[in-house]
């Protein structure tokens, strides 16, 4: 009995050793599978798997298949690091993609530097990720989406004409950071009547809305993610307010589509890295495949990961190897043609990508303008 177990065990070992020779190219990500942002994790998984399957159906990359591996981060820095380390040491992934929450992504950055593997940030928008990457020190980090600083430039521009605004944001690196960047760029004469930051899991906006109802600002600058926005908008309707949500509300998210359709948010606008209703053939082909497979329109996070995988595959193809150093160099010279145009990285390895200015009119949110980065 004992020796047969031994045989079985060594058999398994031999099998894994042979298997490793023709191994898949592994793409890892630590994202929120649990916690309040779990549904974004679902889109990450969907976007990644769709990209991997599309590539594998066409024969993979360099004759090898791609594999997409996801571990839970719950969007917390400590869990993000633990998951990244597991993916790197046990699963031996060739590349990692960034988390949703900037805090977790930033925490994983030094882990990637130590592991000397490329780290492609496709969702997080905190500007520190850019300033620490490329010439900023960490040569392994690339970011494919616009950062909060780039977006704040556009947001502040669009704020012209308001006399007073109120700010509501999540109490995270993202909420506080993005709101601060907007405030620094705010045109002179725009008064801030109130500022509230609440934890990501807070669902009750009663005190904030009560205060806003009394203060009557021209606009409510909103820096919360989808689920909180949905709760905010639900309660906003009960108050019968007619103050537009501006700045960065996730107006393109499927979670708030019903609220948008009510017509009570006409005049609200947002600047976002991506919106699935962007009427461009390449995007329509992507959203069609996504909806067909998952019965839901792609969320920004799904799109980000989808394009991140494609951009990585493109770099591996051009490098002719998965050698991390060579892939990194290929990524730095990327000219990958994405949905928003060519993905080219600057000295900080930040893609100078275009951003979407989305406006709600007659119960429909649509892309009004594709704004180039400054």
């Amino acid at each position: 009995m004992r020796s047969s177990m031994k045989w079985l065990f060594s058999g398994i070992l031999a099998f894994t050793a042979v298997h490793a020779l023709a191994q898949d190219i592994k793409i890892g990500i630590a994202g929120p599978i649990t916690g309040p942002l779990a549904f974004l994790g679902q889109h990450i998984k969907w976007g990644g798997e769709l990209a991997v399957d599309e590539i594998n159906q066409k024969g993979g990359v360099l004759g090898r298949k791609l594999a997409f591996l996801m571990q839970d981060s719950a969007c917390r820095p400590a869990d993000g690091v633990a998951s990244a380390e597991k993916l790197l040491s046990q699963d031996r992934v060739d590349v990692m993609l960034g988390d949703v929450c900037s805090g977790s992504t930033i925490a994983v950055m030094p882990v990637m530097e130590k592991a000397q593997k490329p780290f492609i940030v496709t969702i997080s928008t905190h500007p520190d990720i850019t300033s620490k990457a490329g010439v900023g020190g960490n040569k392994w980090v690339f970011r494919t989406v616009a950062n909060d600083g780039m977006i704040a430039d556009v947001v502040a521009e669009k704020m012209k004409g308001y006399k007073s605004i109120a700010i509501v944001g999540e109490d995270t690196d993202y909420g506080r950071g993005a709101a601060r960047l907007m405030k620094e760029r705010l045109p002179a004469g725009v008064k801030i009547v109130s500022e509230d930051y609440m934890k990501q899991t807070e669902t009750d906006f009663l005190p904030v809305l009560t205060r806003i109802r009394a203060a009557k600002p021209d606009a409510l600058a909103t820096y919360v993610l989808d689920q909180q926005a949905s709760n905010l908008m639900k309660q906003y309707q009960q108050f019968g307010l007619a103050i537009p949500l501006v700045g960065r509300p996730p107006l393109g998210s499927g979670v708030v589509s019903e609220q948008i359709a009510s017509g009570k948010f006409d005049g609200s606008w947002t600047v976002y890295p991506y919106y699935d209703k962007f009427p461009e053939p390449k995007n329509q082909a992507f959203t069609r495949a996504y909806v067909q497979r998952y019965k839901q329109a792609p969320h920004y996070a799904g799109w980000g990961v989808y394009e991140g995988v494609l951009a990585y595959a493109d770099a591996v193809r051009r490098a002719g190897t998965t050698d991390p150093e060579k892939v990194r160099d290929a990524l730095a010279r990327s000219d990958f043609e994405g949905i928003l145009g060519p993905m080219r990285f600057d000295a900080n390895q930040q893609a100078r990508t275009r951003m979407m200015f989305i406006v709600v009119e007659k119960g429909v949110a649509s892309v009004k303008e594709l704004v180039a980065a400054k």
Partner: protein
Amino acid sequence: MAADPVFLAQLAANGLSVGLGYALAAIGLALIFGILGQVNFAHGELYMLGAFLLFWAMQQLGLPYGIAALLMVALMAVFGALLAQAVILPNLERGFESVVLGTLAVGIILQNAVRLGFGATPLDVASPLESTAFEIGGVLFFGQRMLVCAAFIVAFSGLYAFLRYSEIGRAMRAMAQNREACVMVGIDVRRVTRWTGALAAALTGLAGVVISPLFDLYPNMGTEVVIKSFAVVIIGGMGNIWGAAIAGVLLGLAESYAGGLGSAGMRDGIAFIVMIAMLLARPQGLFGRTVRV
């Protein structure tokens, strides 16, 4: 702005309605602690389950809100009795931590089962009162939040009458005083435990079905509720249902004024500050630990 009486009245109205919601959500926890002397760590998940069952009954069975809500509260009572039978009863004599671990396990299982069954995308249940509001002297009252207040008043008076006048209610109070003595005088302790589980789950489920239309549904939604419920139960006196009611309202008002006059970020701080102050000054809570009616 801060001195505006309409604004202050609005904060009072908000605080009262939110506070009665806290009280409604916390009573189930107080009941199990008061009568069985056990802490139910699946409390938040019972709330979450009530909300998801409501969603399911409305989406899959096509029932209107009112009927679905009542049916699901009844179903939650059955679930509570099963929970008491399967998790609390076998562990009742084993000491405190066995029930804590048992109910914690049930909570984790429920959370992940719901994630598996419904997915992680936030869901929405539509109640006919959801976006209704009426105004009295500039102060807004919200339909669904008024329903929460009404549900609390009905549930609380029902519970009061039940504990006071029904035979099983009297047995429950007896058990809160002394379980060994109950066994000696021939009270069926197992039956009382099942009844307690059923009542607590039904009350928590009721909180779930009336409060959830205000917010989105997601598998982790119970976590928030459980924090507030524990705060309410600790402030009010562990196991004291009157204490839970009054502490809920006080907490709601304190939060409303802190959030309205200060900043929204201060709201959660308030619950914990009051809780810590209470533990320092009056560890037995406002009213002490006894099921009194």
